[in-house]
């Protein structure tokens, strides 16, 4: 009984770390540009497919595809910002949002067109199998993905605090107009943040591809939950998104175990509503 509880808790942590990594990219875009990127989940899908094709066509293990996924998505994010999103940055209301909807629909169906709607799986990743600790079984790819997620989050955190470019991004996030006055090229910072945010979710895709099936609509639930995580953590707060991701992972798993699996996502959403009722700005907003 306690063994099972521990196993659940551990698995909650693992899925939580994965959520965090997906959500951090989103919160960055959100915080800097005040844009909800509805295509975020589709970027995740692209990351997974890149990893899959590298494995299938060239036998590259997902663990080595990580930098490729990061780089390709970085470029894609940059291009999408440059040619689509930047056009509506000063537009009315949520015009940016509609653009990202359009991008999302386009990308998901382009994937169907290019790669068919079939389900894929990376057959034998280098990292496979389980670690057994008594009653607790830990999936090795999941554990590695979680460690990777923590590492990437820390790296991003350091990048934002320690480098000049990172500080510029933070400055824009805090106050756009004064950053402009300080001589920061906000347009460049926007593009960079969009690219970094996309790159992070691409990396998440590579990790996820080690143990999750891949198909064009795979991002759906992950996307929805990452919106919730970002809002729960407080928009633009990287630490907030990291903690909220783990929290949601654990709550979802334990809620499913003790209460009712059919309601496990409902519990997550309810938790969000209760939290913002008490703290409208989110946990760390």
């Amino acid at each position, binding site marked *: *009984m306690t063994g*099972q509880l521990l*196993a*659940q808790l551990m*698995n*909650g942590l693992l*899925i939580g770390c994965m*959520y965090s990594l997906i959500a951090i990219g989103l919160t960055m875009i959100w915080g800097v540009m005040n844009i909800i990127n509805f295509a975020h989940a589709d970027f995740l899908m692209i990351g997974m497919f890149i990893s899959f094709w590298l494995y299938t066509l060239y036998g590259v293990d997902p663990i080595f595809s990580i930098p490729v996924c990061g780089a390709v998505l970085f470029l894609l994010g940059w291009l999408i910002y440059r040619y689509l999103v930047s056009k509506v940055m000063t537009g009315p209301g949520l015009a940016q949002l509609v653009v990202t909807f359009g991008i999302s629909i386009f990308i998901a*169906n382009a994937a*169907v067109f290019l790669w*068919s*709607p*079939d*389900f*894929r*799986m990376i*057959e034998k990743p280098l990292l496979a199998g*389980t670690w057994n600790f008594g009653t607790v*079984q830990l*999936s090795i790819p999941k554990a590695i993905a979680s460690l990777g997620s923590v590492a990437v989050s820390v790296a991003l955190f350091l990048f934002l605090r320690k480098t000049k470019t990172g500080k510029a991004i933070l400055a824009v996030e805090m106050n756009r107009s004064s950053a402009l006055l300080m001589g920061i090229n906000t347009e460049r910072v926007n593009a960079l943040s969009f690219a970094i945010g996309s790159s992070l979710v691409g990396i998440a895709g590579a990790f996820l591809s080690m*143990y*999750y*099936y891949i*198909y064009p*609509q795979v991002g*759906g*639930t*992950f996307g929805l*939950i990452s919106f919730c995580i970002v809002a729960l953590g407080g928009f633009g707060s990287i630490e907030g998104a990291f903690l909220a991701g783990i929290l949601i*992972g654990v709550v*979802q*798993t*334990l*809620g*499913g*175990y003790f209460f*009712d*699996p*059919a309601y*496990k*996502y409902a519990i997550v959403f309810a938790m969000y509503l209760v939290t913002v009722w008490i703290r409208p700005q989110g946990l760390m907003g």
Partner: protein
Amino acid sequence: MHGKRGRILPYALTLLLSLALASAGAAADKVIKIGAVYPLTGNIASTGLDCLHGAELAVDIINGKYPDLNLPLAKTAGLPNLGGAKLKLVVADTKGEPRNGQAEAERLVTEEKVVGMIGAYQSAVTKTASQATERLKIPYVCSDSSSPTLTERGLKYFFRVSPHDAGFARDQLQFLKDLEKAKGVKIGTIAVLYENTEFGSNVGKQVLMLAPEYGFKVVADISYTANATDVTSEVGRLIKANPDVLMHASYITDAILFTKTFKEMGFNPKGILTFAGYIEPGYLPAVKADGNDIIVRSTFALDLAKSKPLVAKVNALFKKKYGIDMSENAARSFAAPFVIADAINRARTTEAEAVVKALLATNIPGSEMIYPWKGIQFDPKSHQNIHARGILVQIQNQNYVTVWPFDSAAAKVIWPFPAWKTRK
């Protein structure tokens, strides 16, 4: 009355012409349009496409001359009683949404002038599409939706060839009973795990209702959200309940995820009996050897070829056309065009009332089918094929092998389910 004559004349001419052509023995270019609605975009597009391929092959066989195929209308080109008229599928995408099922059925009937309808795959879409054809008085033959409620509505124009979930649930439980007898094993407890959309909850409901009747105790009743990101809590509950047998109804996404998680967490019941997702074409390529020893309900398996050479021939055609083996979905959808064409052929007209009458009189023998059934005959009230039944296949060496009913089994069932630790 110029207008009236103008309307009659073309018909009269067509009739004369077709009579002339028919008597000349030449294939008329008359076309019988059948509407086919499937989810061709969206979440389950791959399944929809698979179904469509089955139906398309059936139409090819009906339209072409296949003397060595013992299938209805295969030996002749087109429908002989209608002057060799050809069948044409008019395909429409539902995106898996019920409202599109209705709209497309209406469009196909009123704009494309189809005289019959097949398909939909998802029961919810079949519901609205068949409601529309009912209103428009067009026969609908379904061979790929499995919700029991479809044939409980008392529709006049709706017929179903394939078995439904209540039947499948019975098959599974009967298999366990037979197994107890044959192997002398004792199966006491079962866990029911089902995704909470229409399909899963229907299966769940049936199993929960029937299990006591067969003397099994349900120790876990777990419904879960489809397309989950993670299912460790569900599997955790299963481990806690520790059932002898797991019965799992899911679509393909969750089937893949659960298989992986069973292995990861070492969930080892004596048997895993499943529905639907585990037999979709994407499942085995995704899980590979981890799928071994799982048992799935089916209407079809390639190894039926052992007792039915027809199966191999049809599969060869399918493979030639689409490059892959015929899946269960494709095989199920393969039935409907034959049934509807057979009825039209016997009715000698596409007029709906006559076709319905012919459908009610359908009697296709088991030898002219790729399924292990006695035949196709519709219940006069519900319009459900009374001979439809399921088989159980087990994944052995990454192949679907028929294991039940024991008399048409291609291999012995592997029981109990080998522990994950002992597997590669």
